[in-house]
């Protein structure tokens, strides 16, 4: 094998460097597939897509639509009782609800528990969740891009558009910063 650097053109060498740098940048942004959390910064307003509306029920059987919250900043959290990382974020979200609810902000929790309210209701009580929780379904998951990894959180702006997506446990500050920018 001839590894002599003299036989490669400088342009190609820099192309290789550019490719490696490109991969590093992309992996640094989205993380290695399957393992790392994904945190995408707030999109520019022009790039935001409308958050799909849904019709899900709360613990009292009341039908809740995402569109009920139009005009508010919504932190839409897909979670489950069996999801440890979700349990870390939930106290943050109750704090955000308390701190920002009077400024046009709300958290909406979408539980993906197969066991339904018999599992979710005691958990909500135990964690003292102070925001609305609804039971999710496959249709809603599909609408939001087949949500599988939990937690998955969508930050939705006052116009009902998705401003950012967070997959997996991310830092509390990232949510707090996003909320403050959107309010």
């Amino acid at each position, binding site marked *: *094998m*001839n590894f002599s650097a003299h036989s*490669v053109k400088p342009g190609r060498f820099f192309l290789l460097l550019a490719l490696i740098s490109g991969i590093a940048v992309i992996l640094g942004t989205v993380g290695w*597939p399957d393992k790392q*959390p994904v945190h995408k910064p707030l999109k520019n307003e022009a790039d935001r897509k409308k958050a799909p509306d849904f019709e899900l029920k709360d613990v009292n059987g009341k039908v809740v639509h995402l569109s009920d919250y139009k005009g508010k900043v919504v932190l839409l959290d897909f979670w489950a009782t069996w*999801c440890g*990382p979700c349990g870390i974020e939930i106290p943050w979200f109750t704090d955000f609800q308390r701190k920002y609810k009077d400024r046009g902000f709300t958290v909406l929790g979408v539980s993906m528990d197969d066991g339904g309210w018999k599992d979710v209701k005691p958990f909500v009580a135990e964690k003292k969740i102070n925001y609305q929780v609804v039971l999710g379904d496959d249709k809603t998951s599909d609408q939001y891009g087949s949500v599988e*990894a939990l937690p998955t959180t969508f930050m939705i702006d006052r116009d009902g558009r998705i401003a950012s997506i967070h997959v*997996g*446990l991310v830092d509390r500050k990232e949510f707090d910063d996003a909320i403050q920018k959107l309010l």
Partner: protein
Amino acid sequence: MPFKNYFRSVSLTIVATLASTLVAPAQMAPELKIEPQATVKTKRGTPATVTLKVSLPAGFHANSHTPTEPNLIPLTLKWTGGPLTDGVIAYPKPLLEKYTFSAGKDISVVTGAFDITTKFQVAASTATGPAAQTGTLRYQACNDRMCFPPKTVNVNVTVSVE
């Protein structure tokens, strides 16, 4: 191999890696695998042991059969049919591990490759010949920062009773 060709190969590999990274879904549930098993040969009126060789991809864990929190979903094997009866299941010894999300607490998990062993009795009245011993294995997997919905995989072991 001249460096020119070497460079071309490296470049193509990098491009392929980059492409697969972009095309692959960002977050996919880990797949628990059960190794195919040789036929379990046994005799009527004797004990029989079935060992499932199970594995999870690196970086993931599943809750053990005895999770530390009540809301966590345990690793559970259920035998649903076949000639072997009265199975006593021995799950792998759990590992107690701390994760980013466990807030300093130990979580009881299984990782990597592990065995689940079931000791059966073969009744004296069992029909002889080959038959399928069937069951399901339910698990719920996470990594350090995210969890995936519980899944159930089918278990199918060929048993030959003499």
